[in-house]
């Protein structure tokens, strides 16, 4: 029979081992991505893969250059960030500083419902409602394009940006705000000159995580971005971001063919992008953590 002390130690050890599972999963994901993706680099060099301008995986001979997909991903992410950041941060300021408790209790669940909206529904909406609208009113060849995809993606990253920014703004020490107001600054001046600078690390973290969400989001770009693997010349051109390529082509890629390996290799690129975004966010939130008024 175990003593109480031994039993307690055993329980603690079990919990520790389970806590390691997240890291184990992360490594398993990496291992399998690399195992199934790296063989493509026997056929094409890393440089030609990343910067090759032609993605014709099923042609004969095939071309495995993902540059157009990479550019597509970067463009939709950048444009959606441009839309989502002002919207998300301003909503966060509204929630944390301006809204009355009653309105807050209405707006906050709205943002949470947006966060819970399945991406396939947003993609569907972009396809059947927004695309025809854009096509008619802007007189375009197709409403399925970079702009539409960015707009839909923006509404997926707004909740991320908003909720993390709001936490950061909310945790700014009261005495900072009161000090500024007591010196005669208006509420708005206090927000711009005191509260935003004090919560800047949280706001930056939220923006990076929002971008990470946008670049990895699949269903929206699959359904709305138009799907053409070419480098866009205007924001109304169709694009084919990386996740869309994986999702659209996996079904037709024969098991362990070069095409299959190439799609996993795109998965590696995507994984590394989000890993980098998350590491940067983690670094910012730790290095510049707001502990109290004393750290300013």
């Amino acid at each position, binding site marked *: 029979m175990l003593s109480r*002390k031994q*039993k*307690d130690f055993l*329980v*603690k050890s*079990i*919990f*520790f081992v*389970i*806590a390691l599972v*997240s*890291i184990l999963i*992360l490594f398993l*994901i990496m291992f*399998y*991505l690399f195992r199934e993706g790296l063989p493509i680099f026997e056929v094409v060099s890393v440089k030609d893969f990343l910067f090759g301008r032609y993605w014709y995986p099923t042609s004969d001979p095939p071309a495995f250059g993902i540059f157009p997909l990479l550019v597509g991903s970067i463009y939709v992410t950048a444009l959606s960030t441009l839309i989502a950041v002002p919207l998300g941060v*301003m*909503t966060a300021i*509204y929630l944390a500083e*301006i809204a009355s408790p009653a309105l807050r209790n209405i*707006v906050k669940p*709205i*943002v949470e*419902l*947006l966060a*819970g*909206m*399945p*991406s*396939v*529904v947003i993609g*569907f*909406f972009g*396809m*059947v*409602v927004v695309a025809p609208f854009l096509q008619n009113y802007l007189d375009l060849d197709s409403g399925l394009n970079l702009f539409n995809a960015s707009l839909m993606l923006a509404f997926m990253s707004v909740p991320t940006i908003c909720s993390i920014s709001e936490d950061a703004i909310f945790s700014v020490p009261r005495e900072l705000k009161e000090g500024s107001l007591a010196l005669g600054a*208006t509420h*708005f*001046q206090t927000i711009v000159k005191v509260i935003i600078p004090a919560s800047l690390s949280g706001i930056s973290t939220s923006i990076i995580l929002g971008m*990470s969400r946008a670049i*990895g*989001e*699949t*269903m929206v770009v*699959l*359904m709305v971005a138009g799907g053409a693997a070419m480098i866009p010349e205007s924001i109304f051109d169709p694009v084919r971001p990386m*996740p869309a390529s*994986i*999702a659209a082509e*996996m079904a037709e890629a024969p098991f362990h063919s070069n095409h299959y390996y190439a*799609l*996993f290799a795109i998965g590696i690129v*995507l*994984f590394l992008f*989000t*890993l980098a975004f*998350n*590491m940067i*966010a*983690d670094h910012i939130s730790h290095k510049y953590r707001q502990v109290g008024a004393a750290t300013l």
Partner: protein
Amino acid sequence: MDKRKVIQSLAFGLFRMAALVNALALAILIYFLVKNGISAISWEFLTQPPRNMMTEGGIMPCIVGTFLLSFGSMLVALPLGVASAIYLNEYAKPGLAVRIIRIGINNLAGVPSIVFGLFGLAFFAISLHFKVSLLTGMFTLGFLTLPVVISSTEEALRSVPNTYREASLGLGATKWQTIYKVVLPAALPGILTGAILSLSRAAGETAAIMYSAAVFFTPKMISSIFDPVMALPYHIYVLATAGTEIDKTRPLQYGTALVLIALIFSMNFIAIYLRARMQKKR
């Protein structure tokens, strides 16, 4: 009037507008889904399998599949997630190990769902011979929602006052007895809220299951966890993009989308309600 005041009211107007845009976006989305989808909803739609090349009949197998996938994923994510959170919040002391575990969790939360899908396909379906099946989907979605479960459980544990723990330990209980008998019961509503949110996340997930668990159509009802399933999100995607009669099935697409968000919103509302009640209690 003071110039600063004018600037302030202009800026605040802009902030209010931003909040309004969110509400408007949600309202427009729901409006279109309800307006075009409500006519498709009928008893038959909810209880019958699809017929006639998907152009008629219902979506019952998809509803069943989505329930199985999301509750199944909780069987994986809940034990792992709650245990991880207990370790991080109750046992661990700040240090390198905890820092590394947290980095792992944060990065896992950032992995795109399509990458989870690739992983599920390569690891569970192929290497472990689970095939494209409910079981593969349960594990893939379970791993995908694990970070959500961990962070919401941690939040629930943090909100249990330390005096509870001290009182229990003071009475001579061991750490584990304290956690099991005092901390966990007090944190249960919070853990439940997190579980419901993860459930809704899993139910709406498409990219992670499209190559690991879901199929567009299976003629027979699912009879084992090694069978592939139909699922609401994947059904919407295929009907809207790859069906043979995209225009003809448009009402069915709207109807399926409406059923999915009704499911997800009701879960979210339950979670929001639970949390509001907890905050009131405190």
